[in-house]
């Protein structure tokens, strides 16, 4: 004998009973009636939403060959412990993460060979030019910043990233409302229609970057996105000339959670965009499944710079491919307060005039 299915009231969660009087499922707790077909569809949709599952292929490691590492040296920073590699003829000895000027050249030890590298497109002068262009747009930047600030350290670094590809399938259910209003001579009426909505489908992602270096600030690295992967090339030590390359110290397994988080958010946003014409749309259940997960290891170009202004160091990063500048600028309180008073004054004038007409 088939199991008897029990339906629960979507309003108050009490059990529903079939009412022979009207052929509907009746809730004796809140008094609402529901079509049997609608409740069956709703239950089927909810049952199809399972728990989220994440399934990634293991990363297939590639090791450097002897020829690959010819001309590469390792460097360690005694101050912050960064382990970086660079051209063995590299003249610069400043650590790109902590600014220590005494990094030590060491034997290059085997590291994973990147699956691809995006070479620098912006050299140092071009990067500084982009930086100057961008800081001029900062609304509350102190006027002396241009004259008194000094780029204390600037290094071009290939930052290690884990790149994630995946296909994503999701089932999402929502509760939503539609509201209509009308009136007659005596009353205003508001009718609220309640809906149960479900969506299922899939989408694919490619090259989601998660930085694999503990030293590189994750927030800065994400803020530098996007990179244009059309410029990606097979790794060649020639690209390192004049630059440093960090070795990964965050494994792919440790990085995957961040990728999962971003993919899930994007998937749910894409599904939410398909629910139109409603208000108060609230997700009830979400199930996200990943498949075809691929992980690759890449080196992406970043200019790290520390700017000294009034005895304080301000960190910035510049996308070595696109020239995008990110960071945190000093705020001139005088400029900020002046702006506040200006806006307050103009608003006061306008709202006072509105008030004169509103309060007769």
């Amino acid at each position, binding site marked *: 004998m088939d199991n008897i299915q029990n339906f629960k009231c979507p309003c108050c969660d009490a059990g529903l009973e079939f009412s022979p009087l009207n052929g509907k499922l009746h809730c004796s707790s809140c008094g609402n009636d529901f079509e049997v077909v609608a409740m069956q569809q709703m239950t089927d949709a909810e049952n199809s939403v399972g728990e989220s599952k994440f399934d990634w292929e293991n990363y297939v490691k590639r090791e450097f060959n002897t020829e690959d590492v010819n001309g590469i040296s390792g460097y360690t920073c005694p101050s912050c412990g960064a382990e970086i590699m660079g051209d063995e003829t590299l003249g610069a000895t400043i650590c790109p993460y902590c600014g220590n000027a005494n990094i030590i050249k060491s034997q290059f030890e085997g590291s994973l060979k990147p699956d691809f590298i995006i070479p620098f497109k912006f050299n140092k002068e071009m990067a500084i030019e982009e930086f100057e262009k961008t800081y001029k747009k900062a609304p509350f930047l102190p006027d002396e910043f241009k004259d008194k600030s000094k780029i204390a350290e600037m290094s071009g670094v290939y930052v290690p990233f884990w790149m994630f590809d995946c296909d994503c399938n999701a089932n999402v259910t929502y509760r939503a409302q539609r509201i209509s209003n009308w009136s007659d001579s005596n009353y*205003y009426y508001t009718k609220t229609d309640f809906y149960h909505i479900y969506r299922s489908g899939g989408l694919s992602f490619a090259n989601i970057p998660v930085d694999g270096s503990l030293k590189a600030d994750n927030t800065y690295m994400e803020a530098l996105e996007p990179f244009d992967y059309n410029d990606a090339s097979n790794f060649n030590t020639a690209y390192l000339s004049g630059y440093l390359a960090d070795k990964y110290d965050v494994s792919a397994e440790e990085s995957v959670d961040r990728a999962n988080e971003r993919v899930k958010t994007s998937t749910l946003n894409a599904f939410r965009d398909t629910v139109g014409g409603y208000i108060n749309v609230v997700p009830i259940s979400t199930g996200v499944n990943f498949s075809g997960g691929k992980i690759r290891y890449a080196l992406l170009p970043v200019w790290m710079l520390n700017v000294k202004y009034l005895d304080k160091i301000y960190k910035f990063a510049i996308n070595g491919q696109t020239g995008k500048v990110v960071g945190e600028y000093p705020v001139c309180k005088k400029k900020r307060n002046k702006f506040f008073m200006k806006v307050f004054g103009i608003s006061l004038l306008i709202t006072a005039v509105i008030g004169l007409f509103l309060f007769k």
Partner: protein
Amino acid sequence: MKKIISVSMLFILAFCLNFSFSVSANGVGAQFPIIDEGNVLSDEEFSEIEARFVEIREQYVCDIAAVIVNEPYADTAQQAADNIYDYGDYGVGENYDGILFYICLDTREYHFTTCGDVAQIFNDNALIYIEDNVIKFLKEDDFYKALKNYADIIEEVLTGSYAYNSVAVAGGNRILLIIGFAVLISLIIAFIATFIQVSKMKTALEQDNASDYMKKGSFNLTGQGDIFLYSHIDRREKPKNKSSTHISSSGRSHGGRGGSF
């Protein structure tokens, strides 16, 4: 000294004086702004209330009256109030502007009747406001308090300062309200604008999604459904800014509102 007059005597007096063709700016009822057949007010209370009614009538050119009877003067309180107003010759000017408060002690019914141009001022909202502040005292048989409040609120309504009409704000309160409104809104706007500008000073922000990495054309909806569950209707009574008017037995248009206490 408390005037001892009944409604019946008032009718006779009004009838006689109207037949004598005497011309008076005020009707006969103006001489008797308050009638207390039930003797519920002391002499002092009666004099005080009467003086107050006269003061309001002279200041605002609007008759204000109250009639307390032992037994009903008509089938309904509304008819009784209208008849006393019309045949008792209440009302100022050619439109008989005024308001009368009828109280029947036997049936414990009351009715406010209005006439003339002031019927638009004493609309349903205003009468509800008067009821809210007067009837509670009738229920306690505190007729003095009820009539005192009645006089105060009539004056409040006539000066245009009563709180029920949210658009009408009088005198110094208006200036304060405008200043308060302008300052509050301006502060909010200034804070929001400054916050937006300050947030532009920090561009190192993490990405919360991976929309830049979605493969174009890969989004595919395999199932969707919008299932209607149920409806719920709320209704709200419309505030009545208009007066509900009717024609009395004399043929005049009256507004008004009443009930029981």
